[in-house]
C-alpha cells in the first residue's frame, strides 16, 4: 500500500471501485456540498470534488473536500495546472493532506476561454504529466519538485484523467502509458458513450500491460435528454457520442428521456464490467447526484465493500 | 513507400497524369513534376493518347523519375509490333521504370497522323502476356533473357457507362487481369453515386481499383462530357454549378477535390487528370485534404 486511501484498498483487493463527483458551489455556503455528499454516502467509495470546473470560479476543491471529510466521506481533491504554479500546487497538496485528504486527481483543466474569466492568465507552469510526477515524487521520494526534502510527505493516492476518444486516437494508449510512467495510480476516463471505441482502447491498454500498472475507472455520465446528448456530441471538446445514442434518446418521449438515460448508463456499466482492465466506474452525474444511487444499485454495484 | 507497396498494403494511392511535350522542350514537364514531388504516389505518363505524336512515355517517365517521382508509363499496341514492344519494356526496366499500364489504343480519327499505319501485332491481352513472359525470363520467341525484368502492371477500364459498354469493358478487364494485370484504372468519375454500380462490380474483382478524376475546366467541357460520354454522368446541376460560380476555375478544382473525397471510401486510389493544368494539382490535393 502506497497510501491509506480507501480507494487504493478497494482496487488492490480486486473489487470494482465506484467513484462519483460533486461540484462545489459558486458561493460560500458549504451546505450544498454536504447535501450532495450525503446523497452519495454508502453508494460510492470516493467523491471527487472538482477544481474550478469548466474554468468557472467555485469554492476551492480543498475546502469542499474538507467539508466532506468532516462528514466522514472520502473525498478526492481535483487540481488543475491552469490556475496555480508549482509552488501553489505543492502548498495546497500539503494543506489537503493535512486535512486527511489522501486521494487526488491531477488535471490540466479546461481552457479559461470557456469559463467566466477568459481574460485570466493561463498558468500551466506544469502540464498534467509533470504534475503527476511532482505528486509522486512528493510521496515516494519525499521531495519537493525543486528538490528539497519534505518532512512528512503527503501520501496521496494519485489519479489522472484519460480521454480514450480524443484525437489522435492512436496516441491515447501511449498517453496513458506516459501518465502511468509519471506516477498515476489510477485513471478516470472521459464519459464513455462509444463503447466499441472504448473497448478498442482498453484492448490497447491491456496489450501493453498497462492495466496491470494503473487502475482504469470507466467514466459514466447518464444522459438527461436528447438535447444534452446533442450538446455533448457537438459542444464538449473530446467527447464522442455516436449517432445511435442520440437516436435512442430521441426515440423516447420527452418525459421518459431521463429514465432512458439512466437505463442506458446502467446497461453500459453492465457491459463494461466484462471488459478486461476495467477496475471500476466513475459516475459523473452532473448536477444530478440524486440519481447516482439508482444507477449504482441497478448496475449491481451495491453494497459497497467496506475495507 | 513505393506505389506498389502502398497498393499491396491497401493504402489509398494518389496518382497524377502528366503528358509529355510535343517537342523537346521539357521544361514544363519537369517543373510541373517537381511541384508534385512528395504530393502524389506516382505520376502516370500517357503515351501518344488521342493519336497525337509526342515525346514517348518511356522518356517522359524516366525524366520524371529523375525528378524524384515514381512513374507509371502507358503501353499499348497500335504503334509497335512485338519486337519494339518487348525491346522498350526491357529498356523501361533497365531505366528504372517498373510501373506499366496497358491501355487501349485511341482511335486515329482525331490523330495528327491520320495516315499512319496501325500495327496491332498484339492485342492488350497479348501485350500483358508478353510482359508476363518477359518477367519469366523469356521473350515471345521463347529465347532466354539475360536477366529478368520486373513490372507492376495495371490495365485500363474502357467505359463506366451502364449496360453493355460497361459489361464489355468489365469482361476485357477480367481477361487482362487473368493475363497478369494487378490493378485497374477507370475512366473519369464525375458522380460517385451514379457510378456506384459499376464501381461495386469492379470492387468485387478483388484488385485495387483506381478511379480517374478529371478536372473540368469550363462549362463547355462539362457540356461536352454530358453530351458525348454516357459513362461520365455529368449532370445538368453540375454544369449549372460551374456556370454560376464566380470563379469557374476554382469551382472546377473544388469539384475535383470533392470527387476525390467521395472516392476515398469507394476505390483504392485516384488518378488526377488535369490535362495541361498540372499547376492546379496542388490546389486539388489541398482541397481534397490529401
Amino acid at each position, binding site marked *: 500500500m502506497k497510501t491509506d486511501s480507501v480507494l487504493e484498498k478497494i482496487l488492490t483487493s480486486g473489487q470494482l471501485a465506484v467513484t462519483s463527483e460533486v461540484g462545489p458551489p459558486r458561493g460560500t455556503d458549504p451546505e450544498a456540498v454536504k447535501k450532495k455528499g450525503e446523497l452519495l454516502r454508502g453508494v460510492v467509495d470516493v467523491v471527487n470534488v472538482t477544481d474550478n470546473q469548466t474554468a468557472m470560479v467555485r469554492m476551492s476543491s480543498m475546502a469542499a473536500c474538507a467539508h466532506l471529510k468532516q462528514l466522514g466521506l472520502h473525498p478526492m481533491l481535483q487540481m488543475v495546472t491552469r490556475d496555480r504554479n508549482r509552488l501553489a500546487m505543492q502548498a495546497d497538496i500539503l494543506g489537503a493532506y493535512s486535512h486527511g485528504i489522501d486521494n487526488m486527481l491531477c488535471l490540466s483543466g479546461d481552457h479559461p476561454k470557456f469559463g467566466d474569466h477568459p481574460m485570466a492568465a493561463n498558468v500551466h507552469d506544469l502540464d498534467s504529466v509533470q504534475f503527476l510526477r511532482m505528486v509522486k515524487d512528493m510521496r515516494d521520494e519525499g521531495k519537493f519538485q525543486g528538490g528539497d526534502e519534505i518532512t512528512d510527505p503527503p501520501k496521496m493516492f494519485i489519479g489522472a484523467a484519460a480521454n480514450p476518444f480524443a484525437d489522435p486516437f492512436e496516441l491515447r494508449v501511449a498517453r496513458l502509458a506516459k501518465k502511468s510512467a509519471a506516477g498515476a495510480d489510477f485513471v478516470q476516463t472521459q464519459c464513455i458513450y462509444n463503447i466499441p471505441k472504448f473497448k478498442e482502447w482498453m484492448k490497447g491498454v491491456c496489450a501493453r500491460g498497462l492495466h496491470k500498472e494503473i487502475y482504469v475507472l470507466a467514466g459514466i455520465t447518464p444522459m438527461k435528454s436528447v438535447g444534452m446528448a446533442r450538446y455533448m456530441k457537438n459542444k464538449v471538446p473530446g467527447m464522442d457520442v455516436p449517432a445511435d445514442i442520440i437516436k435512442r434518446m430521441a426515440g423516447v418521449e420527452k418525459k421518459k428521456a431521463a429514465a432512458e438515460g439512466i437505463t442506458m448508463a446502467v446497461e453500459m456499466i453492465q457491459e463494461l464490467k466484462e471488459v478486461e482492465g476495467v477496475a471500476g466506474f466513475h459516475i459523473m452525474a452532473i448536477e444530478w447526484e440524486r440519481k447516482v444511487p439508482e444507477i449504482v444499485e441497478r448496475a449491481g454495484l451495491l453494497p459497497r465493500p467496506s475495507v | 513507400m513505393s506505389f506498389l507497396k502502398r497498393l499491396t498494403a491497401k493504402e489509398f494511392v494518389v496518382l497524377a497524369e502528366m*503528358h509529355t511535350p510535343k517537342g523537346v522542350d521539357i521544361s514544363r514537364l519537369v517543373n510541373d513534376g517537381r511541384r508534385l514531388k512528395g504530393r502524389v504516389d506516382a505520376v502516370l505518363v500517357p503515351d501518344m*493518347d*488521342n493519336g*497525337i505524336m509526342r515525346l514517348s512515355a518511356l522518356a517522359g517517365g524516366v525524366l520524371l523519375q529523375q525528378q524524384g517521382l515514381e512513374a507509371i508509363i502507358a503501353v499499348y499496341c497500335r504503334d509497335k509490333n512485338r519486337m519494339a514492344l518487348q525491346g522498350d519494356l526491357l529498356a523501361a526496366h533497365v531505366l528504372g521504370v517498373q510501373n506499366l499500364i496497358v491501355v487501349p489504343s*485511341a*482511335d486515329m480519327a*482525331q490523330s495528327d497522323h491520320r495516315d499512319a499505319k496501325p500495327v496491332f501485332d498484339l492485342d492488350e491481352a497479348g501485350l500483358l502476356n508478353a510482359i508476363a513472359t518477359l518477367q519469366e525470363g523469356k521473350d515471345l520467341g521463347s529465347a532466354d533473357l539475360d536477366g529478368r525484368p520486373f513490372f507492376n502492371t495495371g490495365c485500363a477500364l474502357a467505359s463506366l457507362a451502364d449496360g453493355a459498354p460497361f459489361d464489355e469493358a468489365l469482361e476485357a478487364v477480367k481477361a487482362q487481369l487473368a493475363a497478369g494485370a494487378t490493378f485497374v484504372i477507370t475512366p473519369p468519375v464525375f458522380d460517385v453515386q451514379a457510378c456506384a454500380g459499376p464501381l461495386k462490380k469492379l470492387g468485387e474483382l478483388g484488385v485495387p481499383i483506381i478511379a480517374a478524376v*478529371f478536372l473540368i*475546366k*469550363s*462549362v*463547355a*467541357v462539362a*457540356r*461536352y*462530357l454530358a453530351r*458525348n460520354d454516357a459513362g461520365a454522368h455529368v449532370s445538368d446541376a453540375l454544369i449549372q454549378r460551374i456556370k454560376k460560380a464566380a470563379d*469557374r*476555375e476554382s469551382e472546377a478544382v473544388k469539384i475535383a477535390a470533392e470527387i476525390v473525397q467521395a472516392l476515398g471510401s469507394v476505390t483504392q486510389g485516384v488518378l488526377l487528370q488535369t*490535362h*495541361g*493544368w498540372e499547376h492546379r494539382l496542388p490546389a486539388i490535393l489541398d482541397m481534397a485534404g490529401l
Partner: protein
Amino acid sequence: MTHPQSNQSEGKVLVVGGGMGGMRTALDLAESGRDVVLVDKAVSIGGLMTQLDRTFPTNNCDLCTLSPNLSQAGRAHRIDLRTMTRVEATKGEQGAFEVTLTTTPRHIDIDRCTACGDCLRDHPECVSFTPGLDHRAPTCMRYPQAIPQAYSINMEQCADVDALVKSCPVGAIVIDDKITTVTETFGSIVLAPGAEVYDPSPIAALGYSEQPDVLTSLEYERLLSASGPTGGKLLRPSNGQAPKKVAWLQCVGSRARQADQGVSYCSSACCMFAIKEAIVTKERFGTDIETTIFNMDIRTSGKGYEAYYQRSKDTDEVRFVRCRTQNLQAGETGALQLRYLPEESDTFVTEGFDMVVLSTGFFIPEDIRTLADQLKVDLNAHGFALTDSFHPVSTSRAGVYVAGLFEGPKDIPETMVQASAAACMAATHVGVTPDASPTEELPPERKIDDEPVRVGVFVCECGENIGGVVDVDNLVSHAQTLGDVTHSENVGYGCSAESMEHIRETIVEQKLNRVVIGGCSPRTHLTRFQDLLRKAGLNRYLVDIANLRDQDAWVHRDAPELATAKGRELIQMGVAAVRQSKPLADQTLPMSQDVLVVGGGVAGMSAALSLAGQGFKVHLAERENELGGEARNLRRTLEGEDVRTQIEHLVAATEGHDKIQVYTGALIVDHGGMPGKFTTGMQVGPQLFYRQITHGATVLATGALANRPSVYMLGEHDAVSTQHDIESLLEDDTDTVKTWSKVVMIQCAGSRTKENPACSRICCQSSIKNALRILDVNPAASIWVLYRDMRTIGMQEDAYQEARRRGVIFVRYDPENPPQVEPVDDKVKVTFHDPILADDLSMHADRVLLSTGFIADDEGTEELARIFRLPRTEDGYLLEDHIKLRPVDLPTLGFYVAGTAHSPKSIKESVAQAQAAASRVQTLLARGEINLGAAVARVEASRCAACLVCVRACPYGVPFINADGNSEIDPALCHGCGICAAECPAKAIQLQQFDDDQILAKLEGLLERITA
C-alpha cells in the same frame, strides 16, 4: 509628260478612291508592310463621310472619329497619296498591272502650302475648294481637317496671276504646273471610288428645285455641321429662321418603280441616316421640334440599329408615318405642304412642314462606270461591281478588288469591313517590303531633368462637342492661373493635323516640358498625343488628357455651368498629374506570328485561308467534330449560288492547307498573355487532350445559332417549319413542295422581340428566296408573307419586287397584334389583320414558314467572352471596338471578330468580315514586336523589406526576391496592373505612369479648392 517606269513598283497596290473605304484599305496595307498608291480625283481625301455631321448610332462627331484616320493616311510613309488624280488605262494582269495615272495640276506645292488661306482671301474666284454637295455654294472650307492640308487653284479663272503668286507668303503657288501622266506597275488594285448621291431635281413633285427649304439629307447634314454654312445652327435657308417641324421623305431616288424616279434597288443607309438626323435635330436644337419620317419600310438591319430605331420612337419621340405617295408644294404662309396617303387609310392627308429633307440614295455615276470599263471590271445592271458570296470583294478581273459603295449600297461599317477585306486580298499579290524610308526622323528626346516645369495646356473645342457645352475660353484662362502653367490656349479641333502641328510648334517654341490636352478620352487619343510629344522632342509620357468630351461635355449637356466648373477641375487634375510625370521608356517583346482562329464555319475558314495564304501559321479551333458551321444547312443564296459545293471546297481547302492546323472538337479552356503573345489552352478530341497554343492574334468566328423560338406552333405542328428547315426540301424533294397550295411565311419570328431585340438581317431575303423557289417548283402555289418591315436591302430589293410581280402577297402585321396560328388536322389556320383591307383574314395553310433568323450563341460566346475577357452586347453578340469605324476589331488589341459572332449577317458579309479580320491581324503582326508601354512596376530596392507581399499578390507571378534580398520585377513580364504597388507595405513599388505621386497630385489638383 510620261515617265517610263522601272520594275520597282511591282510591290505596290493601287487604291482608287480616298473615302473612308479607300483610306482603310490603304492604311491596312501600309500597316501590314505594303506600299500603296492612293489616288483620289478630289482635291482632298475623305469622301462622303467627311460631309456628315454625326454618325449613328453613337451620334459621334464624324470629323473627330475620322480625322485620326485622315491624318494617319496623310502621314503613313508607305502611302503615296495623290489627289486630283484619275486612272486612265490599265494593261497587264494580277501581279503586274500597268496603270496610267493622270494628275490635274493643283498649282500649289503641297509641301510648301501652310493652308493659311491668304490666296483664298485675295483671289476667291480662282482658289477652289470642293464645294460639298450643297448646291447653294458654301463659303467654308470643305472641312477643317482636310488632307492634304492645301488649297488648289484654277489658273484659268485667274485674272492676275502675278498678284495671285504674290499673295502667297511662302511661295507655294506653281504657275506652270501641268497635267502629269505616269504609268506605274501595281501588283493589285483596289477600287473604292464610292458612289454619288442621287440628285432629286428631276422629280418635280418633290419641289427640290423650287423650294429652298427642301434639302437633301446630305445638305441637311452640312447644315447641322459645325463647319457647315450656318456654323452648326439649324436655320431654314428660306428665311434664316429655326424650323419647328421637319419631315424626312425616304426612298427618294431609291426603290423607284419607274426609271425616271431613280434606281430600283434600296440604298440601304438612308433609313438610319434619317433617324439619326431626326434624333440629332431634337438633341441639339430642341426637343420641341417635331420630326416625322415618311417611309415605306424602316430598314434598320445593321448591328445595334434596330435598338436605335426603337429608341428614336420611344425616347426621342420621332414620328414614323408609313405612306405610299407624296408630293410637295409651298403653302401660303411659307410652310411646305406635304400630301400623302397613310398606309392604313384611303384618303390623302395634307400636312404643313417648315423643312423637308429628302433621303436620297446612292448611284454609280458615269465616270465610275468609265473607270470600271478601263479596268475591265464587270458591272451588274445597276453599275455596281459584280462579286459573289464567297468572294465578296473580288471583281470579275483577277487582282482587282472592290470595297464600299461601288460594290453595292451600304453603310459605313460594311464599307470598313470590305475595305479591310480588299486590303487582305490585294496584299496577296504583293510582298511585304522592308520599311526602308522612314520619312519621320524623330528629333532626339530633350533632357528635361534640369528644366523648371513648364506646362502647356491645350483645350479642344471639338466643334460643338466640347465648345457647345463647356466655356473653353474660361478653361483656358483658368489654366493660366495654375502652378507651372506657362502656356494655355484653345486649339479648336486638337486632333486635326493643323492643330497637332501647332501644338508641336508651341511645345518647341515655348520650351514646354509637360502638356495637358483638354479633349476627348485618353482611351482613344492618348497615344496620338504621346506620339505628338515625341515628335516635339519630348518623352511621350509627359502628357495627360483631361477628358472634357466623353466625361464632361457629353454628360452635362443640360448644365453648361457645371460642365465648365467640372472642366476646370479636370484640367487642374491633369496639370497636377503632369507636373509629377517623368520621362519613361517603353518595354518591348517579339510578337508571335501565329494566329488562332476560333470557329470553323464559313467565316473562320475564310479567315484562316486568307491568313494561311499570306504565310501565317493558323490554328483553327472548332468545337464541333467537323468544319462548316451553320452554313452546312444552307443550299443556295438568293443569287442562286450553290452553297453546299462552296462549303465543301472551303472545308477541303482548309483541311488541306499546310499552314492551317485544324482542331475539331476543340474547347477553349484558358487564355493569357498579351497582344502579340497570347497563350490559349484548349481541350481537343474525344479524350479532351490539352493543347496550348502561342499566338500573336486571335480571330473569333464563333458564329450565331439558327433561332428556333417557341412561337407559332414551331415544333408542335408538322406544317410549321423555319425557312432554314426547307432549304433541302426545296432542292431535293420538289414533289412535296408541289403539293402545297397555300404557304404563309411569317417574318420576324423570334427577331425584333423582347427576347431577341436585334433584326436578324437575313430573313427577309431568305423568305423572298424561298418564295421564288417555291414558285419555280410549284407556280400555282399561293404565297403570303406576313411582315413588319420588308428589309430587302441593296439589290435584294430587285428580288422583292420580282416576288411581288410573281404574285407573292405581302401583308404587314403589327407586333402588338401578331398573326395567330392554330392546328387544323394536318394543316394550320393562320389568322392575321390586313391593314389595307382593315380586316382580319384567316386561311388554311399547307405550310407555315417562319423566318426565324439568328440568335446569339450564348452557350458558346458567354464562356469564350469570359475566358478571353471580351465584352458582349446585351443580346449576346461580341461587342466590337467601334461600331462604325472599327467593326472588325474587338476592344482588346489582338482580337478580331468575323461572321455572325458579331451580328446576324449573310455569307457574303461573313466572308468579307473574315477577310477583313485577316487584314487586321496582319496590321498587328507586322509590327513585329510588342510594345509593353511604360506602365511597369519598379522596385526601389532601398525601401524593399523583402516581405514577399508582391510575390504573393502578382497575378502573373513576376516579382521575385533577388540575390540582394530585394524584390525584383522583370519589366518585360510585368503586365502593368499595379496590384503589387498598391499592396506593398513599404511603399517600395511604384507603377510607372500611375505612380502614387501622380495619383495623389490628381486628388490634390481636384480638391485644391477645399483645402486651400
